[in-house]
């Protein structure tokens, strides 16, 4: 439940639903193609604690997007199922989506873009959208159109939109891979800051090891149809990319990442 009564449009006033856990149970996906059937993965069991920032890492074609799309309920699994659970045990969880490109309606302002996804929220008011735009650092851009924003700012609107529905789980498929490195770097820090402020589980797909280490609590490696790597991230936050601990852990993770190459 989110409060809408407060006058002040400040990020501090966001009262967030608590994070949900994610459970993949014996999950498998096979595509039927003209050349026959193609198994992307099978028998995957995973439990993700509420509030965890998980990064799913894998080479191109390993099935990251497929898995995310199943978790997002965009694709049906061939076998198994995905369950979300709130801390109180209920299973009705909101999902927030952030895509690789911002996917904003170009003819709508930032506020209207957020309003668009609140069709079923009778209490929606523009102050709600503004609060989330504030949260991602877009205070002076409420009524701008996407074309009037930089690529990084557009992606921030995308993040604000996903957060505004107060999701228990935030699903992100390479959301920064279209941005230049400096902008992406800024957004990563921003995302961590926001995530620390709001209690959310994040399921984040990437092919960039440094990004995964910087963001995650836990790194999953997908390849050859299974999760072959599952690492706890031992680093304290905030994280220095050039610190010894960072580089050491990165070495270790990269070794594991390449361990299935034959």
């Amino acid at each position: 439940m989110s409060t809408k009564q407060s006058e002040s449009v400040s990020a501090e006033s966001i009262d967030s639903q608590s994070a949900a856990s994610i459970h993949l149970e014996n999950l498998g996906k096979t595509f039927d193609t003209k050349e026959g059937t193609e198994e992307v993965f099978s028998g995957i069991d995973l439990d993700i604690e509420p509030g965890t920032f998980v990064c799913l890492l894998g080479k191109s074609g390993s099935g990251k997007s497929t898995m995310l799309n199943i978790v997002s309920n965009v694709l049906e699994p061939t076998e198994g199922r995905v369950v979300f659970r709130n801390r109180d045990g209920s299973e009705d969880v909101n999902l927030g989506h952030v895509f690789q490109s911002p996917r904003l309606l170009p003819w709508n302002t930032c506020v209207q873009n957020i309003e668009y996804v609140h069709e079923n929220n009778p209490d929606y008011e523009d102050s709600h959208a503004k609060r989330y735009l504030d949260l991602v650092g877009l205070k002076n851009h409420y009524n701008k159109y996407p074309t009037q924003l930089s690529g990084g700012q557009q992606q921030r609107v995308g993040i604000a939109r996903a957060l505004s529905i107060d999701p228990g789980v935030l699903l992100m498929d390479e959301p920064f891979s279209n941005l230049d490195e400096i902008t992406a770097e800024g957004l990563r820090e921003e995302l961590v800051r926001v995530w620390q402020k709001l209690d959310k589980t994040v399921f984040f797909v990437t092919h960039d090891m440094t990004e995964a280490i910087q963001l995650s609590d836990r790194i999953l490696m997908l390849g050859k149809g299974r999760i072959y790597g599952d690492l706890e991230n031992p680093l304290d936050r905030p994280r220095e990319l050039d610190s010894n601990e960072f580089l050491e852990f990165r070495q270790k993770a990269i070794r594991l990442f390449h361990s299935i190459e034959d």
Partner: protein
Amino acid sequence: MYTNGKVIFLESTVALLVFWALLAHGLALTDTISSPTLVFASLVELLLSGDWVVHMADTMRRVIYGFVLTTIIGTVLGVVMGMSDFWENALQDYITIGLALPSLFAAIFAAMWFGLSDVTPMVAAAAIAFPFLTQNVYEGVKNVNYELMEMSSAFDVSRNRAIRRVIFQSVLPEWFAGARYSFAICWKITTLAELVAASSGIGYMIEFQMHKLSITGVLTWTVLFTMVILFVEYGILQQIEKRVFAWRQSTEIGIMGGA
């Protein structure tokens, strides 16, 4: 850029008028090419007499009939072609032919079938104009951003809302550009059809002045016609467009090409 274009337009118009005046008066050619002052005087006289009102009203009415017919046919066929492969294949070639159809052909055929009634300019205008709108709407529907539709369903937005907020909005600019262009075509074809078969209207009056061999008369009516078109184009259509498409930084849409 935008203002520059306007300045250049003004400058070139003035230059043309000066050149025309010099040629007419300097070489005593007023019988053949009239002159700006003669046309201006005759235009003032016409406007004061009020005779133009009935002709303008007749032409306007026919233009609007033609435009309404164009809009209906053009939009429906465009949407149908954009959504169904069958209709896309079935109609594509006809639209291509339609785009190339000579205006006079449509005017003469309509006149032979419908005679002196308002139906003649209406049908002639719609026959020439609708393919432009169809083509635009068709391309607009084809280019609806699939990712935005996916985003909508990921956020549980209902189908109706997605149609209103995504599909309709993304086709609107193409629709508007097509509608504006077809509107200009409707003007041209309506006056052309009036010239072929009508007993009133601007096209009819231009033809009437031509028979009197009055070049000043022909030019007076042509200038009046142009003034009205410019008013509709800049005073009405562009203002609507500015409002509707505020989200686009620039809306440079070609206007009034050859028909």
